[in-house]
C-alpha cells in the first residue's frame, strides 16, 4: 500500500505545507476580503433601497391620511353648505309664502268688500225695481192704486230675507 510508505511522507508534507499555507494567506489577505466587500456592498445597497422604500411608503401613508382627512373635511363642508342652503331656501319659501298669503288675504278681503257693496247696491236697485213692478202688478190685478209705502216695506222684508239667505 503506497500510503504506508514513509519515504514519500516528507515530500507530501512539505508540499502540503507550502501549497496550503499559500492558499490560506492568499485567501485571507486578498481573495476573501474582496468577495466580502462585494457582498457587503450589495447588502448595503439592498438595505439602502429597502430603507428608502420604507421612507417613501411612510411618506405616502402620511399623504394618504392627509388626502383622506381633506376629503372628509370637504365632504363635511359640502354637507354644511347644503344644510345651510336648505334652511335658507326653506326660510325664504316660508317668508314668500307668508307674504303671498297676506297679499292673497288682503286681495280676497278687498274683493269680498267689493262684492258686498256690489250686492248691496244690486239689492238696493232690485228693491226699487221690484217695488215698482209689484205696485204695477197690484194696480193691474186689482184696478186700484197700491199704497207705495207698504209695497216698498213688503219688498224690503222679502229681499232682506233673501239677502240673509244669500250671504
Amino acid at each position, binding site marked *: 500500500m503506497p500510503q504506508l510508505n514513509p519515504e514519500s511522507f516528507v515530500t507530501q508534507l512539505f508540499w502540503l505545507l507550502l501549497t496550503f499555507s499559500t492558499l490560506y494567506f492568499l485567501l485571507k489577505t486578498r*481573495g476573501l476580503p474582496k*468577495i466580502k466587500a462585494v457582498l457587503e456592498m450589495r447588502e448595503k445597497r439592498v438595505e439602502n433601497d429597502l430603507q428608502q422604500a420604507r421612507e417613501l411608503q411612510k411618506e405616502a401613508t402620511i399623504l394618504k391620511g392627509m388626502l383622506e382627512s381633506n376629503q372628509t373635511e370637504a365632504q363635511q363642508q359640502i354637507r354644511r353648505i347644503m344644510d345651510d342652503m336648505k334652511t335658507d331656501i326653506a326660510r325664504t319659501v316660508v317668508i314668500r309664502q307668508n307674504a303671498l298669503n297676506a297679499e292673497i288675504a288682503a286681495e280676497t278681503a278687498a274683493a269680498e268688500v267689493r262684492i258686498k257693496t256690489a250686492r248691496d247696491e244690486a239689492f238696493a236697485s232690485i228693491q226699487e225695481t221690484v217695488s215698482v213692478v209689484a205696485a204695477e202688478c197690484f194696480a193691474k190685478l186689482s184696478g186700484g192704486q197700491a199704497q207705495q209705502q207698504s209695497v216698498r216695506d213688503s219688498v224690503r222684508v222679502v229681499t232682506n230675507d233673501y239677502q240673509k239667505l244669500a250671504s
Partner: protein
Amino acid sequence: MSSPLHQFEIKTLIELPKLAGFDVSFTNSSLAMVVSVVMTLLLTSFAGRKQALIPNRLQSAGELFYSFVHSLVTDTAGKGAASYFPLVFSLFAFILFGNLFGMFPFAFTFTSHIIVTFALAMLVFLFVTILGFVKHGLHFFRLFAPHGVPWYVLILLAPIEMFSYCMRPVTISLRLFANMMAGHIVLKVIIAMTVSAGMAIAVFPFVLSLAIIAFEFFIACVQAYIFSLLTCVYIKDALELH
C-alpha cells in the same frame, strides 16, 4: 491488470535537491495540490474581480461558494467564529478541489493519502486546542467535565472525554482518507472488470461504474463538507466549551 493500489503510487515529476537531507521532489501529489490551490484562487478571484452589483455566472458561483462556507461557519460555530472563516474556507476548498480533481482519469487524489489528511487534521486539532487555551486558559479542561455531572461519574467520564478529544484527528483524517481511497479502489476494480470482461457481460460493470462515478462525485463533495463541518464543531467547542 495492474493492482488497484497502483493509482496511489507517488511518482516524482521533477527531481529537486534534497532539503536538510529530506527528499522534497515535486510529485504527482504536489501537482494535485497545486491544481487545487489554483482552482480555488481562480474561483475566488473571479468572484471578487469586477465587484459588480449584479454578478455574472462565475462571480455568482464564487459568491455562492463563499456564502455557503460562511453560513456553515456562522451557523455551526456561531457569529464569534467568523474570524476563523478563512481557515475553514481554505480547508473546504483545498479538500473539495483535491477530491474533485482526483475524479479525472489518471489524475492523482492527494486526499487518498493518510499522511496528508492526518496532517490537515492535526492542523485543525492543534489550532482548536491552542484556541481553547488562549480563550479560556486552564478553564479549557472544563470541556472534559460537562455541567451537572456528579463527581463519581466524572472519574470515569473525564478520561473518556479526553480520549475521544485526542482521537479527533485520527477519526477525522481516517474518514476522509478511507472514503477517498475506497472509492477510487472500487472504481478501479469495476472499470478493470469492464475492460477485461467480454462484450456481452461488460455492460453490467460499465453501467455500474457510471453510477459509482456519479456517487464518487457526491462523496467528494460530502467528505470535504464533513471535514469543514467537524472543524467548525471543534472551533465551537473551543470557543464555548460545553
